[in-house]
């Protein structure tokens, strides 16, 4: 498919729209807070402190560098959770715009995913601080991080598009999704070691994309393992399937949005 000049111009324009919206969201998020952007770093750190306090006193898991184990899983999982949740309500929230101006509707969920991604990148500072604290020497494997971020972002965008579409027609989704996210949090080994899982559960985890992404993150940042080509393909495959599914669902229904928002 050849890319014509007008397509390129349209793409440029849409990209400018997306970045403008991200800038707006960013400005609004920390307006009137004293610490401002520092919260993007503080939040995961504090969360990690609470969780590691709770889990190391009550459960006594034998995990080396448990706080780092926690924060790695948590940040990457919340990238998915936050971006899908905000993408979900993006269409409904931009109803006034959709009803009044002609605009590429794909912009709204994608912008939310992108905005969460920016926050995630900032929260990586927290991860770096924790690594520094535990004197974990970064390995060359860490260079694979952008790849991982790409996978998770694509995966989240796919889910976000499906959710945004569904939410327009059934507002139930808005309420239901937080339950799913909670269940998913527990179904993914974020706070506990993988080896406490029963065999059947372990078999199930191979179908859990978030398990792959979390493990990938820990491999490159904590354990110094290099994920194989096979693992990379699995991660990318899952992300792409979700994105294609999301795009199909979204594009098929976007013309009806205006009648329901």
């Amino acid at each position, binding site marked *: 498919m050849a890319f014509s000049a007008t397509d390129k111009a349209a793409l440029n324009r849409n990209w400018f*729209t997306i970045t403008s*919206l991200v800038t707006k969201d960013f400005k609004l998020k920390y307006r009137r807070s004293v610490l401002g952007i520092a919260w993007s770093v503080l939040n995961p750190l504090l969360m990690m402190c609470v969780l590691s306090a709770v889990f190391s006193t009550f459960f006594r898991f034998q995990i080396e560098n448990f706080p780092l184990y926690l924060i790695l899983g948590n940040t990457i999982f919340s990238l998915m959770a936050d971006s899908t949740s905000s993408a979900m309500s993006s269409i409904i929230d931009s109803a006034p715009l959709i*009803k*009044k*101006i002609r605009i590429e509707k794909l912009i709204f969920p994608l912008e939310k995913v992108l905005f969460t991604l920016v926050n995630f990148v900032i929260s990586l500072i927290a991860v770096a601080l924790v690594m520094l604290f535990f004197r974990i020497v970064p390995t060359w494997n860490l260079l694979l991080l952008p790849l991982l971020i790409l996978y998770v972002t694509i995966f989240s965008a796919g889910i976000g598009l499906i959710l945004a579409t569904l939410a327009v027609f059934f507002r*139930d989704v808005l309420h239901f999704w937080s339950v799913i996210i909670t269940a998913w949090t527990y179904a993914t080994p974020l706070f506990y070691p993988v080896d406490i899982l029963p065999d059947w559960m372990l078999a199930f985890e191979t179908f859990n994309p978030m398990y792959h992404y979390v493990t990938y993150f820990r491999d490159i940042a904590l354990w110094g393992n290099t994920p194989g080509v096979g693992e990379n393909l699995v991660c990318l495959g899952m992300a792409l399937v979700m994105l294609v599914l999301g795009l199909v669902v979204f594009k098929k229904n976007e013309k009806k949005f*205006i009648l329901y928002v």
Partner: protein
Amino acid sequence: MAENINTTSLQCLATSFEEEPGRPVMISVDHVSMVFNMASEQLNNLKEYAIALARHELRFKELKALDDVSLEVRRGDVFGILGTNGSGKSTLLKIVAGVLEPTLGTCTINGNIAPLIELGAGFDLELTARENIYLNGALLGYPKKFIEQHFDDIVAFAEVEQFLDMPMKNYSSGMVARIAFAIATIIVPEILIVDEVLSVGDFMFQQKCERRIQELIKEHEVTVLIVSHNNDQIERLCNKAIWIEKGHPRLMGSAQDVCRIYRVLGGHTGKASSEQRVFDMLGRDVSPREELTRTISADDRYGSAVKLAELCHEGPSDTVIICPGEDASACLVGAGLGSTLDAPLLLTRSESLPDVTAHALRQYGASHVIALDRGCRLSPVVTSALEDEAGERKVTLLQKATIDELALAAFRAADQWGDTAVITWDGCTGDIISLLPFSQGERAPLFFNHDDGIIAPETLAALTSGAFRRLIVLGGTVSFPESCLEPLREAGLEVIRFCGKDAYDANGLIDDWIVTQGKRPRNLIITSIWNPFDALTAGPCAAASDSLIVLEDPGDLDSVARAIDYVEKMGPGIEHLVFLGDHTRFQELDKEILAKAASC
């Protein structure tokens, strides 16, 4: 009322456009229909949806917002869309702007569009104006470089230089509107869509907006599609227009023609045949006779009363009658009294004496003022003002609790009555006004029933005292059942009654009857019953100038058609058509239609 609005096409008007091959078609709307599904029940969650689906109860009420609308806009056209609220104008604009997808038909656009639909969509009021200009520009699809280049122009046009870095929530709504308009019109689009935006902001800014649009039209040959409730604006800006009513295209043609017809027919109710009658008369090629129409109007009913009184009572008058202007029935009683005393009738407010009335009182130099008051509504301020005016003026206050008692009191206040009496019910204003030319000439007193079917004994006694030969009953069988008229017939009174379907119908009957009584009218006084207060005091003038009163409301096409019929019937014998009320009641076109009818 709404079901009476006609939606059929009025294309009999020969204003179809000639082909203009020179100019390319910019917007082509081809047989577009838009159907909205309005869920008859609110099904906002999955469970309800599943249940309804399982029960096959998923019903939708269909709303046809647009029905087979076609139009073509060529380069340089300024195309206006007219129609009452909810007639689908904005839906059409949204389809053209590409926001909505039509259910049927196609809409083809050649060129880029700047939509001015609901300005300021996408403003975030927490952000500063500077930030919002970039954001809004981005949402409208402008490239970043473009916004940077034109940033100063936008700010200058919106006149917000000093407030650029203030959050927009602290702005006035006018400032927000100015910024929005400035951003939207900074580009020179090929097609500009304007939806009611010109009604925002103050007067100066509206003019500025209109100038900018004019500039785009004249200098850049921009094609414009515009929706406005402001008929004059459409006529001023547009060269073509379409009138849409409830989603149906009614009329398309030159803006001048469409606006003209819309002014008379738009949003007005009436039968299709009536509308056609009015439409035909409007399009008829007759130039009205010169000096046929006259208008009597003043700032308010009090001023009108003075003007009307001066028409037939020029000189000084010993006695003047004053009635509260808010009480139509009391005024009509006063009119009867005025006819027999040959005294002018003026109106007052309940709470104060209007200046114009006070001035007229002085002019007449009246030594005796009779004030009528039902239910003690006149405040002491008015009565003392009446007394104080000229020291030794005598004020007679006829004050009664009910209208029938007041009418009786007025009857007893004079003794020179004619041999015809009129009885009616409180609220039958239209009929009484219709009869005024006759009753005033005959010096007929006006009586009221006490309640539906009940005539108070005193009233009955007055009527059957032998002073009257004839009784005119205005009112239907509810107010006056035959049984309650029986004693009057027995007393030897000739009872004449008019039972019309409505006030206009009764007006026709009464006017016809007056003509059979040997009065050939020279003039017709046209007044509105929707706001009859100007007509309350028209009686003496009508009687003095051989006029008949015709009731017409421009908003009710049936009444207009009836008036046309009547005026046409009276035809060349009519010297003048006198309209009571200013342009808010009768527009020039309304007058022109009747003038044409009289000149046929």
